[in-house]
């Protein structure tokens, strides 16, 4: 019996040897682009949106004849919103499928898991919407087509003390989310600097459905506004319950709010609240109009959100860089991406700075009559 245990492990090791040695190399008549996204699991909506944007971009490029005379092939892996999965997905895309670049993820924590792999394999990675500042610090192959939370947090703080004229702001963060915590941190730094007063600071767990405990405590502290860096599904419920508790102060947050669901779930409870985001689909630029039209045509009338726009832009920035580099060789491609200047993306003009972050304008949106209405633009 015991011999069997050991023989079986021996067999395993042998199989490992055999399977590992047979390694497939890329090439062929298509340019393979890898994408990893959370298509299932808790944050599947973000992943799905970004994926649809990316897919649309790749299809458009292919329809117009591809790049460098070749068609693009998008290989998508689902990471199930689960820690540990992105590493396998990205490893597979790079080592097994031989992709030339990686697009993804929306959530910073999963981008952070994939980034070292891309960096070590020298495969450029472009994140559509990971705003945590540390993501692109992983190395010179990691890029993003959105602003980071230091910028967003600062803008939100100025908004609170400027537009809202709030003297005291309560903060409610999602303890499970690095995004929420990170954004709250940069907000706090700037807001205190502006002379603002931080009121009650409380946490919730993303996915909770009852927030009255926190809201009641905030209510008794009497702040002028509530800063709520979180994701739309929690945000909508929090706003509903705040309304139920008779709280009439403005609530504001970051780009995690942006989703149609915020309105369909939150309904009238969202009235008057604000959030900052990457772009507004009402932006009157030709790129945005064209994108929205194409997206609605491709996905049966679905209204795109910021994640879809950024997913689209991430793919387009990559395609642009391939065109400029005239090759898919990794070093040249990396340099070309890094040199992206004044790229007219759907979300706005994209300039990548030395930290490989996009320097972009941020827009504030207010919810009025159950609609996202453009409020102001903050330029970097």
């Amino acid at each position, binding site marked *: 019996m*015991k011999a069997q245990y050991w023989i079986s*492990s*021996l067999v395993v090791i042998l199989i490992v040897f055999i399977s590992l040695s047979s*390694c497939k190399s890329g090439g062929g008549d298509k340019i393979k682009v890898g994408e990893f996204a959370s298509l*299932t699991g808790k944050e599947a909506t973000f992943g799905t949106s970004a994926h649809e944007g990316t897919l649309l971009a790749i299809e458009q490029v292919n329809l117009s004849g591809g790049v460098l005379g070749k068609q693009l092939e998008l290989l998508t892996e689902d990471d199930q919103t*689960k820690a540990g999965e992105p590493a396998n997905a990205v490893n597979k895309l790079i080592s097994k499928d031989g992709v030339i670049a990686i697009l993804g993820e929306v959530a910073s924590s999963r981008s952070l898991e994939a980034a*070292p792999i891309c960096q070590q394999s020298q495969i450029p990675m472009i994140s559509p919407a990971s705003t945590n500042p540390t993501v692109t610090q992983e190395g010179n192959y990691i890029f993003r087509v959105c602003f980071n939370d230091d910028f967003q947090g600062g803008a939100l703080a100025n908004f609170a003390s400027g537009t809202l004229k709030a003297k005291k702001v309560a903060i409610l963060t999602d303890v*499970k989310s*690095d995004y929420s915590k990170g954004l709250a941190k940069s907000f706090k730094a700037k807001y205190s600097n502006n002379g603002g007063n931080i009121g009650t600071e409380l946490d919730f767990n993303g996915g909770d459905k009852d927030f009255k405990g926190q809201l009641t405590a905030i209510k008794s502290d009497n702040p002028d506004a509530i800063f709520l860096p979180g994701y739309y599904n929690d945000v909508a419920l929090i706003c509903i319950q705040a309304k139920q508790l008779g709280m009439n102060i403005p609530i504001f947050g970051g780009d995690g709010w942006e989703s149609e669901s915020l309105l369909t779930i939150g309904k009238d409870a969202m009235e008057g609240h604000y959030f900052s985001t990457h772009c507004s689909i009402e932006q009157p630029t030709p790129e945005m109009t064209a994108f929205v039209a194409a997206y609605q045509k491709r996905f049966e009338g679905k209204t795109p959100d910021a994640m879809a726009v950024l997913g689209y832009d991430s793919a387009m920035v990559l395609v642009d860089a391939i065109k400029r580099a005239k090759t898919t060789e990794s070093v040249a491609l990396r340099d070309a991406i890094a040199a992206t200047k004044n790229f007219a993306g759907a979300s706005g003009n994209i300039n990548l700075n030395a930290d490989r972050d996009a320097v972009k304008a941020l827009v504030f949106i207010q919810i009025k009559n159950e609609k996202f209405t453009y409020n102001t633009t903050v330029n970097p």
Partner: protein
Amino acid sequence: MNFRGAKRWLLLGIALAILASYFSPQFNRYYLGVVIDVGIAIILATSLNLINGHTGQFSLGHAGFMAIGGYFSAWISLSVGESIQAFWYFPLSLCAGGVLAAAVGWLVGVPSLRLRGDYLAIVTLGFGEIIRVIAQNTEAVGAASGLKGIPKLTTLGWAFGFAVITVYAIATLVNSTYGRAFIAVHDDEIAAASHGVNTTRTKVVAFVTGAFFAGIAGGLYAHHKQFLSPTGFDWVKSIDIVVMVILGGMGRTGGVIAAAILLTLMPEFLREFSEYRMIIYSLLIILLMLLRPEGLFSFKTQRRSKS
């Protein structure tokens, strides 16, 4: 009687692991990554098998101990600087993680192992979750953002070396006069106690040993993925390990190893089916359990006395 046999296999296994490690730079990174995942899964499943299978104490908190080992050894790696280059550094830091996990395992085990069955299951699940929440709130290990920039120290050799050691340790332990107590506690606690087995201590030893190896697995995981996020250690992760143990047949080392391999590879094989893969995965679990309720790899064999 040939007691030397087991140790010889251990040495052979370690030799193979070293050999594999020598060739690993030439391997495809993806396959290599998956195979290291398999090695880690084997450690987790066999160590949980000691608690759940051999000793019969249903624990649902294994991911918590994995988290402790992972975070601690990663934290050491990020603090010591230069010396991580030394060959001896890595096994030492893994063991440090394992020892801390074992210590916590002791703290958890002593009071809670008085409970039985479902109560024990929920309490261990609770401890696992508490560990996760603490990690989520501890700035020193990155809190919610997770711990990043962990050096890549886990190689095929280390993963399989430790897998071999874990399997050896647990297999030899339960096949010794000392370790037969684990199985006695599993079979009949009162009969065991009446024949001189200190049941409480036996359970705690099983729990602590399991936690130790889970801690090692956590360290390997940390230096393999290079990034730790608290959400990766929630109770769903514990359930994954439990599924391996039960599917392999509780208390059957060979079966549990096979199940660990199978369940780690299955989602990879199913990648082709993208959005349907987890549906197929869960269907397979149900079907396997319905068709082979005693465990996938259990045949009508009995536990023979080894000598």
